[in-house]
């Protein structure tokens, strides 16, 4: 694909390959459409005139975007949520990835039981975990609630996802690769960095993405472990008496655009960096030879 030549031209394939690929491509399109359909409506409602987001659509207006910008509590809540998701995800991914190795490799006799214990936080309702942590933090540890207590709360229920997905990937990992690296003189740490981690990177990234997704909209555990602060989910889910206004839609739209922009920039930067390193690498090699 990277060379522009369709691999199906080169491989000996069955008659089914081409229609199959077309079918799968169509399915991928359907799936993406399905995923974005509600998003399209969510964005649409942010431009609606009525105080209640929904159909029929009348507008468009930028009124709610203005409201959003002047809503200090909402803006703070968004910022807190972003920080929370970033910190909790980083820690959770780190801790979870580390834990996956001994779980799969050390031959712990109780590894199977450990895995079931890891599934427990997913099984129990967030409300239970939230109340338990509140009581634990305040009565057993005697700490004030703060940003860090929420982070800990989020780590509890996101880390199992990381552990499960990374350990699934590690299972059946071809150890010959590591042993080959050792034969070529690499220390265990080096083999780790250059052989193992790159190969399990998709699992780590997937775990991190799942953690962010879970953390960014978590309400119940957050409510019970947060100090005197607002987060976006607590802001949204507490509008019970009068309902959410399209301000919230506006925030969601802006966040979505912001995320896409950020990721786009990061991707472009990564592409540039790769190109630059290739150029400089070639130059350095030429200098060495010539």
């Amino acid at each position: 694909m990277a060379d522009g030549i369709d691999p199906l031209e080169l491989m000996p394939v069955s008659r089914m390959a081409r229609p199959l690929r077309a079918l799968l491509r169509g399915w991928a399109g359907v799936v993406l459409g399905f995923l974005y359909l509600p998003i399209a409506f969510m964005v649409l409602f942010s431009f609606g005139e009525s105080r209640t987001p929904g159909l029929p659509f009348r507008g468009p207006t930028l009124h709610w975007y203005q409201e959003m910008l002047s809503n200090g509590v909402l803006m703070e809540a968004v910022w807190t949520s972003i920080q929370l998701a970033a910190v909790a995800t980083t820690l959770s991914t780190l801790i979870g990835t580390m834990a996956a190795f001994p779980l799969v490799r050390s031959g712990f006799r109780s590894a199977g039981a450990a895995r079931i214990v890891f599934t427990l936080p997913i099984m129990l309702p967030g409300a239970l975990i939230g109340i338990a942590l509140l009581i634990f933090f305040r009565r057993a540890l005697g700490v004030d609630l703060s940003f860090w207590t929420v982070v800990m709360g989020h780590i509890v229920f996101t880390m199992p996802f990381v552990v499960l997905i990374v350990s699934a990937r590690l299972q059946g990992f071809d150890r010959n690769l590591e042993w080959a690296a050792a034969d070529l003189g690499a220390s265990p740490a080096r083999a780790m960095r250059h052989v193992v981690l790159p190969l399990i990177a998709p699992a780590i990234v997937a775990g991190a993405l799942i953690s962010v997704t879970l953390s960014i909209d978590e309400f119940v555990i957050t409510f019970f472990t947060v100090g005197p602060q607002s987060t976006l989910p607590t802001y949204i889910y507490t509008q019970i008496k009068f309902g959410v206004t399209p301000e919230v839609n506006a925030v969601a739209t802006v966040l979505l655009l912001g995320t896409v922009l950020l990721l786009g920039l990061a991707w472009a930067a990564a592409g540039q960096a790769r190109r630059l390193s290739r150029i400089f690498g070639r130059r350095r090699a030429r200098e060495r030879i010539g």
Partner: protein
Amino acid sequence: MNDWYRDVSRRRFLQVSAVAGAAVALGGVAAACTTGASKKTGTFNWMTWSDHYYDTQLDEIKKAADIGTNISELADNAEGFAKLKEVTGQLDMLSGDALWVPKNFDEGLVEAFDINSLAVSKQLYSIAREFEIWTKPAGYLGYPFGWSPIQIAYNPKFVSPAPDSWEVLLDPKYKGRIVVENQPVEVVAYMAKLAGIKDPYNMTDAELAQAKEALLRLKPNILKFAQQNTDTVAALVSEEAWLATSNLGAEDRVKDAGGSDVVTFIPKEGTIGWMDAEMIVKGGKNHDLIMPFLELAEQKEYIAENFIKYGRPLFNEGAYKILVDKGEQERADRYLYNKPETVLTMTLKGPGVSTDAAIRVFNEVFGA
């Protein structure tokens, strides 16, 4: 070939653990320092609903008196109570409904104060300063803010004759056309009201059985349970629902969202309702900021603006006059603003003896 972590010697392991432990300890110290710092800048911690304030109001108060607020959101009285029970002094002010206020006081979580010591309290309707349930020998339990009865809203295009009772919700004509709030104890209380039960939050077993019977008849009529008022309004606008229970203001919100005219009424058997107040937390770290804050925040100009923004009656009489001057009288009167005595005719929300039993009844009816 070892795994990368097997090569770690015991000494290295202990070194790393020591460093990690020191880092955690430092982090803890840093956190403690920052919590201490907030006291000096004059900020207090307030857990409340988002309609109790608006941004410009808080900014002006900050500028005028250097009192800032850390707002954390409140979903439900029960959850707020549970949280306050554990965090105590970390909060300074908590908003709460009706009978939850004395409940918080009885548990030693909030304190009574002399409401007349606040000059701004003179702007309140006198009835608001004398609610029996909020009066204790030690003083008043909360600074009154707003209130609302639960009304039934209906679409006259589909609902006739014009209803005046809870009974209309059970009418088989309206199968699958009714939206009620997702609040089990309250829904059971509506049915209790219909059955003529005096105290829907403290029912006997016999009374519960009556309520359950009504609930069974209500079940087929329900389209869905509203998580938020947004659900209710959307259903009325799209005309999927013809009847709904809601706080005041449903007809305006439906109109604003492009729906047809909806009529609201308070059922003749009486209704449930809430009235909320700001409670002062006992032992709050920034306790001394509360009274000066209330003195400013509860001024009639702010309250009038709040009404225009959120549309439900408030206890500030001075604000009513401002609303009349601003041409909002029609809306204010429709929302019973100048009739705060209505509160005394409502059954007020709060914890009760039959809470658990009501939930069980609800689950039995609406579970599989």
